[in-house]
């Protein structure tokens, strides 16, 4: 008989579970540390590159010819794109790390949009983008995980702003919507993020329309990490994500979130 072997029984199982939990926690902490370090190491050379190109563009080191100015502006745009990709990548990693059950709460769509806009406005290179929201007056509340939705929506807005010139415009529209599929009985809230493409589309003309069958073909696969992350979050909430791109109408990425279920609305508050 092996006297060093663990005894069987409930206590041993609890010990084993505790050990597993501790190991997993250490692993998550190590990965989190790795992501923070990687973010720092990528951001540092990007900062130098961005500022040094800015110095050239502003002609602080001497006058430039028109073609030189054009080359530098193009290079700065590429640096901004790289920055956006890095942001998306780390948001996706943060989401993966925090892969926990949804902590749903009743929330107004206005709060949801405000959260996402605040997140996006933290980014200096997007501060010159005109961000607007148009909300239907009778929007039902939604039942979502606020943190995950903020991350997902901010990514989608950044994605829409990505590549827009300055001044560019991103409009977020929200309206109530019926269920997309026969098996979906809950009413939905439809949220659309539209980039104006810099063509001056007025918010008044950026009307939401019912999604058509052909929109299905324009599912936004391959539009970047931000969309993938958003799809993951939205689908976990029981919603769907679609995108449509129309000449002269910019690109619209739409997603649905189930509205607050009546059963939850009418339930007494838990103690």
């Amino acid at each position, binding site marked *: 008989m092996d006297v060093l072997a663990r005894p069987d029984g409930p206590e041993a199982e609890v010990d084993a579970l505790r050990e597993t939990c501790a190991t997993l926690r250490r692993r998550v902490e190590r990965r989190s540390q790795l992501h923070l370090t990687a973010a720092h190491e990528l951001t540092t*050379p990007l900062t130098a590159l961005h500022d040094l190109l800015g110095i050239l563009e502003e002609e*602080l080191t001497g006058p430039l010819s028109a073609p030189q100015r054009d080359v530098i502006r193009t290079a700065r745009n590429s640096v901004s794109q790289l920055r956006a990709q890095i942001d998306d990548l780390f948001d996706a990693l943060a989401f993966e790390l925090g892969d926990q059950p949804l902590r749903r709460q009743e929330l107004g769509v206005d709060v949801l949009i405000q959260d996402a806009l605040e997140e996006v406005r933290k980014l200096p290179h997007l501060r010159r983008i005109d961000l607007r929201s148009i909300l239907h007056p009778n929007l039902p509340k939604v039942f979502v995980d606020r943190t995950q939705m903020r991350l997902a929506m901010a990514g989608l807005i950044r994605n829409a702003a990505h590549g827009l010139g300055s001044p560019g415009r991103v409009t977020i529209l929200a309206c109530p919507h019926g269920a997309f599929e026969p098996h979906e009985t809950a009413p939905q809230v439809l949220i659309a993020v539209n980039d104006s493409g810099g063509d001056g589309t007025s918010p008044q003309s950026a009307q939401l329309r019912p999604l058509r069958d052909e929109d299905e073909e324009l599912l936004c696969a391959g539009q970047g990490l931000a969309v993938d992350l958003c799809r993951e979050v939205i689908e976990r909430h029981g919603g769907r994500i679609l995108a449509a791109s129309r000449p002269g109408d910019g690109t619209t990425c739409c997603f649905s979130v189930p509205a607050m279920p009546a059963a939850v609305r009418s339930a007494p508050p838990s103690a």
Partner: protein
Amino acid sequence: MSKILIVEDDKNILKALCIRLHARGYEVVTAQDAVSATVTAVREEPDLVLLDISLPAGNGFEVARKLREEPRFLELPLVFLTASRRPGLRDKAEELDAAGFFEKPYDAAELVARIDELLAGAASS
């Protein structure tokens, strides 16, 4: 002419900041680690310190704490820069009476505007 101490370990960012602030008419002195940052501040008595948080031989917060221990640096404007996404850094900077906090890649126009504002305030007081 106001004097700015830039504490930044990445030599390329340091170069960019030096060019910008020189072009703006400021005198610039530099340090690339936490130890020389404190030594340089004591020797040069800058009017403002632009302070990276992640530094060799310490960090920007330690430098700030050491400077704040000296009565002559109690009112010295400290502007923090960081490439880190670690949560809570802004709060820590505020505890040290930071005059500014910028995440990298910073908006150069905003950074310079804040420095101008702080130094104009110091000059007029």
